């Protein structure tokens, strides 16, 4: 070893040549690193989604760089900054959305902050107590024009855009106990909820936007009737009392229920969203209005009634063969056409063709049908509905013998039906005669006589003889009391008498036992003994009564 080393050392004198300048493979590493870094940079740049600005009232736990935007619990964006808006009254949250959701950021997109909510109607978002709040986003599945500025919702929407179902609008006169989030029932099964409660533009109605979940929305027909269920519905009728509660939840929050009359299930279900319905106050009311088209202007006619229409007002029923087929929508008075003539009143008649078996009929067909009826002698006539209240009803009568009449299609705003003069007026005239006769009764003289009588009575009472009367009365009362005490002493002898009677009847029995049962005397004696027994019992009862109530001898009971 040592030799060799020395040899080697001596053998090399000059500096060794430089190592060959080959390129090391290690250079691939920084190259790869550069490529990787470039890719990361490029990827994160191109992968940057759109930046949207959402305006909220309050930031509500939203933190820049941390708070996520989620859709169905999946992160689809991240808050980049939170700042006050220029007006310093709201908060602008800038959110970087994921690029793959960018196409859906259109006008249908909604953002809201999810916090823990605990109130009377809901407890939700408790998870955010631990995880921190997040922003929820909702959009429909139709890509649209990009928007970058949104107004955040104050309240989370109850149903997301993508939920299958049907949105409807109900109109009611009053809001009642129905709130946002109130349930919608079908046969007491919850199938949807109220999403929005608002006033109509002219504040004449309350509008409820409701959502009915699939597959229950297939049970909504054009003739479906919606009614409010506010807690308990009770009724007392000829068949007893009944109480109906749609659900315990609805007992507190109110709700909406709907049902379908049997005949309308033959029609096809509603598919178009946003259809309007009337919201009835109660189930009874909803059932009472058996057919829709209550406000359908296609089925309106005018009728001009001459003379007085006192008692005719809106909602007066229209009857056909005793069946209700519509109502009077409104009544207006007309001035007489010529001076000295009789005035008249024009009533708008709202028919419900469904009640005549013409469900959802077109206007042309409806007019055709009515025209046919009128050709057959149909007229409208005012009839007396209630003699006491003087209310009227509109009756459709058929008088084939009458001369032909036709519908006046030229009148505005609705065609006018021919009118038959009413016998109401005759009735009214009779009533008037009656009233006149009543008024002609000699009431005045009667009143005078009665007054005189009363005055005499007053004089009598005021006379001095009357003032001594109470004293006399009290003395006679005391004498009555004295006689009562006599009676009481008399009754003390009664038990002895009873005993005697009992003994007598006992002796009589002994006698009877010796008499042949077939003899007449036996029969009469036995009858006498029975009567004696009865008499003894009666006296005993009498004695008991007197003992209990000595006044009985005076009062008779």
């Amino acid at each position, binding site marked *: *070893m040592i030799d*060799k*080393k020395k*040899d*080697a*050392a*001596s*053998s*090399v004198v000059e500096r*060794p040549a430089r*190592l*060959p300048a*080959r*390129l*090391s493979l*290690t*250079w691939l*590493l*920084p190259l790869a*690193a*550069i490529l990787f*870094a470039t890719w990361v940079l490029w990827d994160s740049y191109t992968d940057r989604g759109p930046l949207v600005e959402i305006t909220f009232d309050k930031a509500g736990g939203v*933190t820049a760089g*941390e708070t996520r935007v989620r859709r169905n619990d999946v992160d689809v964006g991240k808050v980049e900054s939170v700042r006050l808006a220029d007006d310093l009254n709201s908060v602008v949250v800038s959110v970087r959305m994921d690029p793959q959701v960018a196409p859906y950021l259109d006008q249908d997109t909604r953002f809201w902050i999810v916090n823990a909510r605990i109130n009377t109607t809901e407890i939700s978002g408790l998870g955010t*107590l*631990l995880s*921190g709040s997040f922003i929820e986003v909702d959009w429909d599945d139709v890509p649209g024009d990009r928007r970058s500025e949104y107004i955040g919702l104050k309240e989370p929407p109850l149903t997301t855009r993508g939920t299958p179902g049907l949105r409807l609008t109900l109109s009611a006169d009053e809001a009642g106990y129905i709130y946002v989030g109130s349930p919608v029932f079908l046969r007491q099964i919850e199938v949807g909820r109220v999403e929005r409660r608002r006033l109509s533009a002219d504040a004449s109605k309350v509008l409820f936007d409701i959502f009915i979940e699939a597959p229950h929305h297939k049970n909504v027909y054009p003739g479906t009737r919606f009614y409010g269920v506010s807690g308990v519905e009770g009724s007392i009728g000829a068949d007893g009392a009944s109480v109906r509660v749609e659900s315990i939840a609805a007992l507190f929050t109110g709700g909406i229920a709907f049902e379908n009359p049997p005949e309308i299930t033959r029609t096809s279900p509603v598919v178009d969203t946003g259809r309007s319905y009337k919201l009835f106050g109660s189930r009874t009311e909803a059932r009472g209005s058996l057919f829709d088209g209550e406000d359908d202007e296609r089925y309106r006619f005018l009728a001009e009634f001459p003379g007085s229409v006192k008692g005719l007002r809106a909602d007066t029923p229209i009857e056909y063969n005793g069946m209700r087929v519509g109502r009077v929508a409104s009544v207006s008075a007309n001035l007489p056409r010529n001076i000295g003539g009789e005035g008249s009143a024009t009533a708008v008649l709202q028919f419900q063709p469904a009640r005549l078996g013409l469900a959802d009929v077109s206007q042309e067909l409806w007019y055709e049908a009515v025209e046919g009826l009128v050709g057959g002698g149909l007229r409208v006539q005012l009839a007396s509905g209630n003699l006491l209240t003087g209310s009227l009803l509109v009756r459709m009568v058929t008088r084939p013998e009458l001369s032909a009449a036709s519908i006046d299609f030229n009148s505005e705003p609705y065609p006018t039906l021919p009118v038959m003069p009413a016998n109401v007026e005759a009735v009214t005239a009779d009533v008037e005669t009656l009233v006149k006769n009543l008024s002609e009764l000699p009431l005045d003289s009667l009143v005078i006589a009665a007054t005189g009588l009363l005055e005499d009575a007053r004089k009598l009472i005021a006379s001095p003889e009357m003032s001594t009367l109470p004293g006399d009365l009290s003395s006679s009362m005391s004498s009555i009391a004295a006689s009562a005490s006599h009676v009481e002493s008399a009754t003390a002898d009664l038990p002895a008498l009873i005993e005697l009677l009992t003994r007598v009847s006992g002796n009589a029995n002994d006698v009877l036992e010796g008499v042949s049962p077939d003899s007449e005397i036996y029969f009469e004696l036995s009858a006498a003994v029975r009567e004696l027994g009865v008499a003894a019992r009666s006296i005993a009862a009498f004695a008991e009564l007197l003992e209990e109530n000595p006044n009985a001898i005076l009062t008779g009971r």
Partner: protein
Amino acid sequence: MGDSDWQALSARQSGLKACTSCGALQPLADHEPCRDCGAAVHSRRTNSLQRVWAFLIVGVMAYFPANIYPIMKTRSFTGNTTDTILSGVVVLIQSGSYVVALIIFVASICIPVLKFLIIAGLALSLQHDWDISTHNRHRLHAVTEFIGRWSMIDVFVVAVLAALIQLGAIMTIIPGVGINAFAASVIFTMLAASSLDPRLLWDHSNDD
């Protein structure tokens, strides 16, 4: 070579090459493996400086994301916090743990930067024949070898925390992207340091 008068003679200058495994010498021209242990014997590792530079560049590159991205995500019921190396140091200073802050700062910021500078300096001095004594070069090389391992302290801290603190909703620590980059940076720096063939330090010092 000024301060001492003994003249060191490198194996290469003697026309020999030493086996790095067993130390056995054999002639430079001999291309056989080591006779004693069978390992491949090179007088100087080929492309040593190229490898140093390549590894060093990767290490420096990885150092940037290591400091920019969070090294640790703490998810607890009070909220999520993410910490980069520097923000962690700042938090420690704010909470008064100056000593811990100093250790982390030195181990994670000072030492890696120092290593980059030393390795780059050594490599440059070899390429450009800077006038640095062999002794100092060796001292610097020894320092990089010694302090290099301490840089991993951060990685171990995060690894231990992430492994131990998994309490579900109460508190969970998740390693961030930054710690991977940091580990990569430390590893590549160590590779760079070890790629530097110490025998090169001899060659250039003898040029004068």
